[in-house]
């Protein structure tokens, strides 16, 4: 699916041959990469069709992974359940009612092994959406590969590992910001040294947008977070060009088509300029912003859910015309329940229609040069620069300190909540039409829906699996490896990854590791801003 596409001919449906790019100015693949990070973009390689999936036990999700790969998906993306995202085991009090519901339950390396059973980890690229306990899940992935005979340097994939946006938007934090950022930079340092094909952070605007921000805020907060990680990694002793080429990004694609395209183009240009001029990057790869896109879950409606297929297609097209490297398309039933298998397949097919039927892949940045799109790109950049200036001010010249300050004083959360409420009021007042919700409401038929349900039996099964692993493991090894994690945690200059990998090997659970780290790092409680 991703092979070079030169045999395609690059002609329109009517047979007209088309060039790779049109217009003047810096070409795609040239600094500042506004028009794309590659000269040929989708002519040489399509984006990765990476569908996010996870529910039930590891075995359940493994079956969905295989189905998606068989249907032509080209990468895996793992959704973990809430207890895993919060670093709690399935037998924790908080986990009751949540095991395997909104993602897959992973307690130990044994679950991770079942999750990827029968899938060649040396051949597939895997994305893991996990933040608070991200280094622990990466450690487990490394151990699964190792026990399956795949060296860690061959592993290809992405760990979300973006803690800033958790405090700002998604709220799946565990520890306070500073020790959490130490964990982020430990992963960056470890993968830079030992996992050259791994993206240690996916700096994510997606959740900021879903929480209600505007497009310009999504762009600005995300890139500010990216710069803050660069400053943190440099402060931890890494050279910019050692790690920056593997930083990746993750954006939302919402409904205002040209605003989205302008946002993606501006993101590349801002990153390139700042990395070169402010952070002194000299490797071109450090300046090239590569990103994953997901369509806007928040834009999906519960009434007339089939209409969401059209929304998703338009959002996906904006992502492609914006030059995304990988794409997840939402399932049309996501405002009703977790995505069903049929709905997930239609979402993947939507990408395939764009890739193979519409011809938009034949020309790089086909909207470049449009007066409106170029203006929108400039405008997005201008608005983002205003935010950077504000954060620099907050941080006395440091973006990293500015981001910490904006988290601690509730600035990000307040800005996002204001924007979300403004939008709701516009919809309520009828100033914005939402098809099927405040206009064109006839024709909804709830009886046609077949929704995915996760029953209580998942929780019971997972508790049994966990009990079996705990019984079979060597308690001395568990205690020894946990003690080393505790020792390394209080030594900020020690990278925690090796100790976490040892512990994962000894079948220590996610929750046990988080408990040890929480004892050393503390627990974050947010300042409530409504």
């Amino acid at each position, binding site marked *: 699916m991703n092979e070079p596409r030169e045999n395609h001919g690059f002609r329109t449906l009517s047979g007209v041959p088309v060039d790779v790019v049109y217009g003047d100015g810096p070409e795609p693949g040239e600094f500042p990469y506004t028009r794309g990070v590659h000269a040929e973009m989708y002519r040489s390689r399509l984006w990765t069709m990476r569908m996010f999936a996870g529910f039930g036990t590891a075995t359940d999700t493994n079956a969905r992974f295989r189905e998606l790969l068989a249907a032509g998906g080209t990468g895996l993306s793992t959704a973990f359940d*809430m*207890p895993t*995202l*919060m670093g*709690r085991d399935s037998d924790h009090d*908080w*986990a*009751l*009612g*949540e095991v395997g*519901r*909104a993602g897959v339950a992973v307690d130990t390396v044994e679950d991770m092994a079942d999750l990827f059973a029968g899938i060649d980890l040396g051949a597939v690229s895997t994305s893991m959406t996990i933040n608070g306990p991200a280094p622990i899940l990466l450690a487990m992935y490394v151990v699964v590969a190792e026990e399956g005979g795949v060296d860690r340097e061959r592993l290809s994939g992405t760990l979300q590992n973006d803690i800033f946006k*958790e405090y700002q938007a*998604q*709220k*799946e934090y565990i520890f306070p910001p500073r020790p959490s950022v130490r964990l982020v930079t430990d992963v960056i340092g470890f993968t830079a040294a030992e996992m050259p094909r791994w993206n240690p952070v996916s700096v994510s605007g997606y959740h900021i947008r*879903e*929480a*209600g921000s505007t497009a310009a805020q999504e762009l600005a907060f995300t890139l500010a977070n990216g710069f803050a990680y660069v400053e943190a990694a440099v402060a931890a002793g890494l050279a910019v060009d050692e790690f920056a080429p593997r930083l990746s990004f993750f954006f939302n694609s919402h409904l205002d088509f040209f605003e989205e395209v302008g946002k993606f183009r501006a993101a590349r240009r801002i990153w390139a300029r700042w990395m070169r001029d402010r952070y002194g990057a000299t490797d071109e790869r450090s300046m090239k912003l590569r990103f994953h896109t997901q369509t806007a879950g*928040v834009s999906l*409606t*519960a*009434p007339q859910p089939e209409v969401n297929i059209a929304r998703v297609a338009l959002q996906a097209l904006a992502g492609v015309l914006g030059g995304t490297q990988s794409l997840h398309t939402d399932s049309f039933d996501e*405002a*009703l*329940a*977790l995505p069903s298998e049929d709905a997930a397949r239609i979402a993947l097919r939507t990408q395939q229609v764009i890739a193979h039927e519409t011809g938009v892949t034949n020309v790089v940045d086909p909207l470049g040069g449009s007066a409106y799109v170029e203006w929108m790109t400039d405008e997005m950049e201008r608005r983002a620069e205003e935010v950077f200036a504000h954060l620099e001010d907050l941080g006395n010249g440091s973006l990293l300190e500015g981001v910490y300050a904006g988290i601690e004083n509730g600035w990000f959360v307040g800005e*996002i*909540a204001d924007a*979300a*409420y403004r939008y*709701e*009021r516009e*919809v*309520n*007042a009828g100033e914005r039409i*939402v098809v099927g*919700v*405040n206009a064109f409401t006839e024709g909804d038929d*709830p009886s046609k*829906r077949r*929704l995915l349900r*996760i029953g*209580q039996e998942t929780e019971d099964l997972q508790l049994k699996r966990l009990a079996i692993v705990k019984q079979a493991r060597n308690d001395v090894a568990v205690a020894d490896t946990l003690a080393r994690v505790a020792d390394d945690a209080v030594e900020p200059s020690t990278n925690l990854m090796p100790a976490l990998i040892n512990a994962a090997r000894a079948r220590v659970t996610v929750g046990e590791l988080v408990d040890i780290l929480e004892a050393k790092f503390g627990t974050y409680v*947010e300042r*409530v801003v*409504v």
Partner: protein
Amino acid sequence: MSKSSEEVGRSQTRPPVRVVLAKLGLDGHDRGLKVVARMLRDGGMEVIYLGLRQTTETIIDAVEQEDADVVGISMLNAGHLTLGPRMVEALVAAGLDVPVVIGGIVPDEDLSALVDAGVAGVLGPGASADEVVACVLAAADSRG
């Protein structure tokens, strides 16, 4: 917003309805609950916003301390069939006659189970300010 202004007028004939809003459980999606908090305030109610990672115990403490009329809990993680009834039972066990409204992604076919469990109202994505205010007022009026 015009209808909610009328609601404000009506509510002036009695003390404002007091609503405790909370995210019950681990789910961190709080956009909807924050919007609801502002809608209820604009509708003339008093909102006690507890925020994330609340338990039935912390919610009951707040209801008692704040003398709340309604509890609103939000979840987008498919946990409503477990957590909704548990919240109702916990309030009953504490001797509190305080109705529970659930917001979030709740499939239609789950509505009857939640009603049977004593949940007073369910608000899905896209509920308007008028619907949100009306649902909470109706819940408050349902108190025995």
